[in-house]
């Protein structure tokens, strides 16, 4: 299994390389001059020449690609044109927001979707089944951003001054600052070192960070800010997971071994969870893996609506601002997310179905 994992990761390298080349070429095809986009329409030719030389945009595109590849291998994604800061630093700041948002949404989708699907399958054609499936159909048909705006309206405005009030924008309330856990613990790292960047990245996962530092105010505030965006983002995956769970369970429940298990007197719950659900899990896990893509795409819209400075929003802004280094780095990160999610799904098959051998 370890050999399999290593081989899969090695196989992912050419895919990532391909994606890097594609995004590099695509982003160079975006019309418009980054110099004019950054410095304004009135920028003179000399200023623009200097600007292009500074960012290496004056060299032929294949040379640019070669230099870029070399730098990426060293972990350097270049400087953002728009922010004049290293892309790696921006990534460290922005990626945790999206990871938190994505994981919470996926958690909601799985924790609600699977039980709903199971219930629907057991009580087939009952009122519960009809309600769940109608709900799931509406869920996949809803524009994420619309649901987000409606949720914001209901929870931030209509329920104001009630305990159900939830903040409509941002990651933390104004005035609150999340103190990185390494500072609380008194750890010291040389700046710019890999370990410093790593702990900085982890500490930007506010929920995780506040759990370590035991700062309950920040924890509560961060969770409150995350609820509305994650609920909005989770609807489509939730509906899809619920539907897949239902059909997969129905398929398994009509098998002979289920009847045999019931006939030998096993409890209904035991049969449903140990015999049926375990065997129905494979397609469900596969579809959960596919949802990671939906989450990334939805993150662009959700982050825009809820004022979250995450990967999706910055990528969208970078595309409109012709900020090549950011577009390239963030697309690769999203692709890496895809690859890792699919790898986890494939590895989980072994645990779900012991008959499957990965080699």
């Amino acid at each position: 299994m370890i050999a399999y994992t290593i081989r899969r990761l090695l196989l992912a390298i050419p895919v990532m390389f391909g994606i890097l080349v594609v995004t590099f070429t695509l982003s160079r095809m975006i019309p418009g001059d980054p110099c004019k986009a950054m410095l304004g329409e009135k920028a003179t030719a000399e200023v623009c020449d200097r600007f292009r030389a500074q960012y290496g945009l004056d060299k032929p595109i294949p040379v640019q690609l070669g230099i870029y590849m070399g730098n990426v291998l060293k972990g350097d994604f270049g400087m953002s044109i728009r922010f004049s800061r290293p892309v790696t630093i921006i990534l460290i700041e922005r990626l945790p927001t999206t990871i938190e948002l994505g994981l919470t949404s996926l958690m909601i989708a799985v924790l609600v979707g699977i039980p709903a699907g199971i219930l629907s399958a057991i009580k087939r054609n009952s009122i519960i089944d009809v309600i769940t499936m109608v709900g799931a159909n509406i869920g996949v048909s809803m524009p994420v951003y619309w649901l987000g705006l409606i949720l914001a309206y209901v929870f931030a405005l209509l329920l104001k001054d009630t305990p159900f009030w939830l903040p409509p924008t941002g990651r933390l309330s104004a005035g609150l600052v999340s103190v990185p856990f390494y500072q609380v613990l008194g750890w010291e790292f040389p700046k710019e070192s890999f370990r410093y960047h790593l702990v900085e990245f982890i500490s930007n996962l506010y929920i995780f960070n506040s759990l370590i530092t035991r700062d309950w105010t920040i924890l509560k505030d961060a969770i409150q800010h995350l609820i509305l965006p994650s609920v909005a983002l989770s609807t489509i995956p939730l509906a899809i997971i619920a539907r897949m769970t239902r059909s997969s369970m129905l398929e398994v429940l009509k098998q002979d071994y289920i009847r045999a298990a019931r006939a030998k007197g096993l409890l209904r719950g035991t049969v449903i969870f140990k015999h049926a659900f375990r065997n129905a899990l494979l397609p469900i896990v596969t579809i959960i893996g596919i949802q990671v893509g939906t989450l990334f795409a939805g993150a662009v819209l959700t982050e825009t609506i809820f004022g979250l400075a995450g990967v999706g929003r910055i990528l969208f802004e970078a595309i409109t601002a012709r900020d090549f280094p950011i577009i390239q780095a963030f697309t690769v990160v999203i692709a890496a997310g895809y690859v890792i999610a699919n790898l986890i799904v494939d590895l989980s098959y072994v645990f779900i179905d012991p008959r499957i051998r990965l080699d």
Partner: protein
Amino acid sequence: MVTDLKVNQIKQKDYRSNSLWRLTLRRIFRQRSAIFGMALLGFLILIAIFAEVIAPYDPIQPLIGIENVSKREGPCIHLFGCPKDRPQHIMGIDGNVRDQFSRVLYGSRYSLYVGFTTVSFAILVGTLLGAISGYFGGWWDNIIMRLMDVLMAFPSLLLAITIVSVLGPGLQNALLAIAIVAIPVYARVVRASVLSVKEQAYVAASLALGGSHFHILLRRILPNAIPPLIVQGTLGIGTAILDAAALSFLGLGAQPPTPEWGTMLGTERNQVFTAPHLVFFPGAAIMITVLAFNLLGDGLRDAIDPRLTHQK
């Protein structure tokens, strides 16, 4: 004689009732969701056709100087107690003093147009690519399918955003982007059906009779791909409408003052706290339209998929 006639009648009846289309149609009409989806879709198509007749106002012309209404005024429905002397606007007034109801009605035209054109384009190109890939195999197959894999490796909306950035914002370019993003699905569906029948005896027979590749593909093989394409296409229209609205919402698709639902949502999204009706109605319209296609697609799938027939 009489018995012969009876047998003939029975035979004829059986023959008629077992024709593929008849059987499928009957199964479709047994699906509640398909019927509901079809009814909803029919209703939406009627609205789109008769928008001019139903809409009480012009969707683009502001009402300044025509009626005494103010910007972003809430809905006024006479039936629900709005004073009779005030003009009726059942979905309120938008940020440019236009009747929101009329705009939502006209929006159905754009949504249906987006859905049908993008999916037709994607099906045409996808069928061509999938057919070549599956029928000729070898290098063709490798090159085309790897290209499709690359297209599928990106989240569709992100890829569409990138393509629109290359082409420039606007409804036409957004449509093209959404169509391109959708191609791989159809290419795969067609390739799979081609592969499944390519080796059948009747195809070999057709070849032996001197049929050209084109004839065999078009008349012998591709008809097999039609049912899954119809199902995939119906579900794909829903996705295309959602994605197109999302692009417009982000300012990359249809541009104001076009009464397109995504654009309407995008221009008024910051007013959600002060004028929620301007956000609610266009979004609900998108949802209902996509729901119609999804219900119909689900129903069609259940009706056409032979694996599911014995479950009913």
